[in-house]
């Protein structure tokens, strides 16, 4: 009964909320528009947007030493998570059956284990940095902690259900993933999609003035 609900109506509901919610966030952002800059452009805004989008993947030299741990953890977590999300064999099968109608070659089991280890340790260290560093602790809101915990339990239940020995574990994982879809558009998790326009806006507005940001 619960499994049918999770795999049926609740899946379509959460997917719908996710799609509509993300679209609404983007439309809201675009409707803000940009302030008209009457000054003469010193450099290309588009190049500035592109430069900032790429340059922000690396920490600034002045602070690189101090933030080495969260930077390494951030890469471990994000690369591991996206490898799991897009290339874990059960996910490829799920996407093929429920979303796209086609699949692709999944990663082997050993790669799944490595990706999940990287994602787990990365997320754990990032969260510890958030609560142990006085600056990030003050900047953090309940939303940030909820997002971290939700992502953690989704990943955890996914790994527990890896061999699909018990359907209950798989259904629990799917249910939590659906909660994540519902939470995503209204939380700081939106940075997964917003980081490109956000960096682009900053880079474009500064790049137009000739500042390398």
């Amino acid at each position, binding site marked *: 009964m619960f499994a049918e609900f999770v795999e049926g109506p609740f899946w379509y509901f959460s997917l719908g909320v996710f799609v509509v919610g993300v679209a609404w966030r983007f439309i809201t952002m675009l409707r803000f528009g940009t302030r008209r800059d009457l000054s003469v452009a010193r450099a290309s805004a588009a190049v500035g947007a592109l430069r900032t989008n790429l340059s922000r993947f690396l920490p600034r030299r002045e602070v690189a030493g101090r933030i080495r741990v969260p930077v390494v953890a951030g890469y471990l977590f994000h690369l591991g998570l996206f490898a799991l999300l897009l290339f874990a064999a059960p996910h490829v099968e799920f996407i093929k059956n429920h979303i796209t109608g086609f699949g692709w070659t999944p990663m082997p089991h050993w790669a799944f284990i490595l990706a999940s280890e990287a994602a*787990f340790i990365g997320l754990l260290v990032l969260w510890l940095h958030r609560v142990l560093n006085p*600056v990030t602790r*003050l900047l953090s809101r309940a939303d940030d902690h909820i997002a971290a915990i939700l992502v953690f339990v989704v990943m955890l239940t996914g*790994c527990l259900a*890896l061999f699909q020995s018990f359907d209950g574990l798989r259904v629990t994982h799917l249910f939590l993933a659906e909660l994540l879809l519902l939470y995503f558009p209204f939380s700081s998790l939106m940075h997964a999609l917003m980081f490109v326009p956000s960096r682009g806006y900053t880079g474009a507005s500064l790049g137009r003035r000739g500042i390398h940001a």
Partner: protein
Amino acid sequence: MTAKPAGEKSQRKPHIGRWLVCLLAVVLVVPLIPYTFADRGNVPNPGADLWREVRQREAPVTGTTQVKGVDTGVLINIRGEQWRQFRMQTLLPAGGMVLGAVVGLIALFYLVRGTIRVPGGRSGKRIQRFTEYDRILHWSTVFLFYLLAVTGLVLLYGRFLLIPLLGPDGFAVTASACKEAHNLFGPLFFVVLVLLVINFIRSNLPKWVDIKWLLKGGGLFGGHASAGYFNGGEKIWFWLVTLFGLAICVSGFVLLFQNFDQGRQLMEISHVIHSSLALLLVAGSFGHAYIGTLGMEGSLESMTTGSVDANWAKAHHDLWMEERAAKGLDENAAPSPEQQSPPGKTAPGYQT
């Protein structure tokens, strides 16, 4: 010739039948006569040797087989039963008693001694003790250690403790999930443990003052025991975590990566080492967690904020404070969060 009467012919048939029955009985019984009079104790059962070899009641025997692999020549592993009996009859009860005894002793100690307060009260001056990297390593280790401890204890004791609560089906799901989590997080614990050891090993090298500290019982029962950056108790815990932890990790890898042809016997020994040391380490961690939280005022702050009160540092790590004073480090000790922030606000109160 006169014809024989019909009645005579009919009387002969049963007579022949009786002879045939007797002959059959003789054929069947006569060969048994020697066995009847023989000394049965000296007659070996021709099948006994075969089945003794198969069951290997006396010693493991390796036979030959077409199947190529580790232990494929062993039909029944006799040491598996010995391992099973050790697990069920020794390891589980002894482990339970150790864990229970440690919890009981800590509770008794708390009732007698209570929380050890900061001597002279809080000074209001904060002393930087651990960096953010130290604390991230510590709490990562704590998180992974207790995740592995809980999942490991479920695998060890769940059959007795959880089946009555969850039922067989519920326990099967829980045990499966715990096994996967244990296998997944075990290698991560190894990585974090190695980083922790590398980070803290220099400040945990034993010194003569640590022996004196231990002889005075760490000042827990009165008197003052001098200590440097880490005291004797902390150093013992560090080396227990290091040595037991690495042994647990190595034995865990033997159990986890079965594709290296290690064989059943090595895996049984590894399991005994893995679970015995893990139970001892879990029991030890209760003491470490107690003294770091409930047992001693001001200790937990060192791992949450990274700083400690100056009076706490003087009371528990006086030699470290003397070193700092000699270097002139404490002239700029940060004021406490209470002094630094307006009422109702919190402040970090330490430098990273």
